[in-house]
């Protein structure tokens, strides 16, 4: 099973490599280390969000509110920073994680305690969170001049030659990897996705596990709220509008099964990276930005078709293992 899983991620890595090679043949500068690091940095936020979404999808749920959570949390910390520039940035980052986690917990409680389907809950909170951005900001923007220099500069600083933003992605990926593969909670995410009924009999609280998945996706959304705002130095109602589906697309391309229970950290990262590479490569080879949406749509469909084949194979392998 491990071997097959690895081939799927390997296939994705090869696809990314193929895009890189093809573009580099035309434009040798594209594959320079500096540019590759830029692509990685550009994709950092999407990678983190995809990991949060993966945790939720593993539990047979879906979080449509991530982008709205990001916009709301980002607006709150941006306004806090504009009003109280003396507040240290690490405190604001901690606050953004806490606010995001709180919004995620709201989703989680509705799913856990009231047993409302996640897609309905997050469809509702998607519009509620987005509307709240307008309410707290009065429709006004927070622009670069109002943000403190520290607020903007922190993620642009470098450590060991990598921008801090990239380090955020690496740390989050490492934490989620440990959570998913080395803790009972991570196992529970997979278990209730594979078979919720059997999970109940093994003593897993299904509702509570979903709750924690939503808290995780919320916390990551909140963190990305700060990162997004300080990266693009503008906080407005439109921030990351419609991005929720891009996040899900990254997961799907990365082989996370929408039916729950299947998906890896590496897959989600590669899925996000694939979208990042494609989006970076298109302008370089002179494809108009208007083509971008159609091409990523086509990429999603192709990835889904290939993934579906992989999943049926995987099902058979599980049966073989069980009978052996």
């Amino acid at each position, binding site marked *: 099973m491990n071997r097959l899983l690895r081939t799927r991620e390997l296939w994705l890595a090869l696809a990314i490599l193929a895009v890189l090679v093809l573009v580099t043949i035309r434009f040798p500068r594209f594959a320079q280390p500096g540019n590759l690091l830029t692509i990685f940095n550009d994709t950092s936020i999407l990678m983190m969000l995809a990991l949060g979404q993966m945790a939720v999808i593993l539990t047979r749920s879906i979080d449509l509110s991530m982008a709205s959570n990001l916009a709301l949390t980002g607006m709150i910390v941006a306004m806090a920073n504009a009003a109280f520039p003396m507040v240290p940035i690490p405190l604001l980052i901690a606050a953004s994680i806490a606010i995001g986690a709180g919004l995620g917990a709201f989703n989680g409680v509705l799913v856990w305690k009231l*047993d409302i389907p996640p897609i309905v809950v997050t469809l*509702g909170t998607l519009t509620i969170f987005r509307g709240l951005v307008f309410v707290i900001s009065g429709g006004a923007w927070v622009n670069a001049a109002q943000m403190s220099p520290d607020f903007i500069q922190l993620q642009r600083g470098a450590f060991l030659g990598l921008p801090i933003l990239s380090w955020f992605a690496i740390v989050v990926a490492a934490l989620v990897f440990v959570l998913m593969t080395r803790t009972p909670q991570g196992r529970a995410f997979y278990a209730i996705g594979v078979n919720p009924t059997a999970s109940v009999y093994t003593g897993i609280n299904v509702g509570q596990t979903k709750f924690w998945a939503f808290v995780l996706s919320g916390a990551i959304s909140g963190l990305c709220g700060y990162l997004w705002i300080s990266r693009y130095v503008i906080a407005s109602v439109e921030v990351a509008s419609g991005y929720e*589906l891009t996040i899900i*697309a990254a997961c799907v391309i990365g082989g996370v099964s*929408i039916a729950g229970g299947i998906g890896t950290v590496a897959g989600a990262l590669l899925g996000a990276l694939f979208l990042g590479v494609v989006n970076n490569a298109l302008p370089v080879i002179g494809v108009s930005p208007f*083509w*971008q949406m*159609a091409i990523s*749509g086509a990429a999603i469909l192709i990835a889904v078709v290939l993934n579906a084949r992989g999943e049926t194979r995987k099902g058979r392998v599980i049966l073989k293992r069980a009978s052996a």
Partner: protein
Amino acid sequence: MTDTTHTRHLPDRLDSPVRAAVLSWESLLVLVAVAIFVANSFASPYFLNAWSLSDLTFNFTEKAIIALAMALVIITGEIDLSVASIIALASTLMGLALQFGADTPMLVAVGVAVGIACGAFNGFLVTGLKLPSIVVTIGTMSLFRGIAYIILGDQSFKGYPASFSWFGQGYVWWVISFELVLFLVAAVIFYVLLHHTNFGRRVFAIGNNATAAQFSGVRVDRIKFVLFCLTGLMSGIAAVLLTARLGSTRPSIAQGFELEVITMVVLGGVSILGGSGSIIGVVLAALIMGLVTFGLGLLNVPGIVMSIFIGALLIVVIALPILFKMWKQRTA
């Protein structure tokens, strides 16, 4: 309704009287609609006026027309997130046809045909290749709108003939708009189709248990394919109405419609897990959403703030029966 907390992962509809649940849901919606209507008439002196109420219908008819078909798709346990992008593509190709000198009947034919073609493409991917519809339609959502962007770029198509504009702006009788009449006719057709035909019964059967339906002779894939074509068709019709009403086509047309359509369907009492729901509920939910947005509009509440009310309404209305049941269990 029996206790669902212990069977939360199994469809509990077999042991629950669906009809009774649906009836009570609809009465709840009627209550909500009347409450909002009364609140509106107290909130603004401009509300209780024939033209005002007629304007109100433009708030929801285009989305509601799609919601009718979406309800059937969701009852079978599938979903279509690409409907707004189908509108964008259909509208763009209508605009393109206009540039080549097409007249009104031709424009309508193009819009409807593009809608059906897009729906058939979704249906093929879902039933032919056995892919999950939520993922397929996230893909085609980007794909269809992407093609609209490729064709249009940052341009727009304008100059639709007056006879075409009638579809979105014309009135059939005094203040009764063509859009509203079309929606009501479509609602009756879908009501009969879902609740009084074998086809409708099969739709419910698939949603309750697709495997069992398959074994009892229901051609599950063929029905799902037809339903995706149907949402495509209704999206094509909505594209005609919306384009005619706006008098122009931009690639960003109908952005975000898909979530509003799904909100209407879910608010209307259709289970997102499939297997239950009614057309009357969907019509009522559409009316409620129209009333809320229009009422708040009269109070000069910005559109984005209205979305808070719609989102909250969705969660509260869904949560109410559950909370009520929990409360009853506690007191019993």
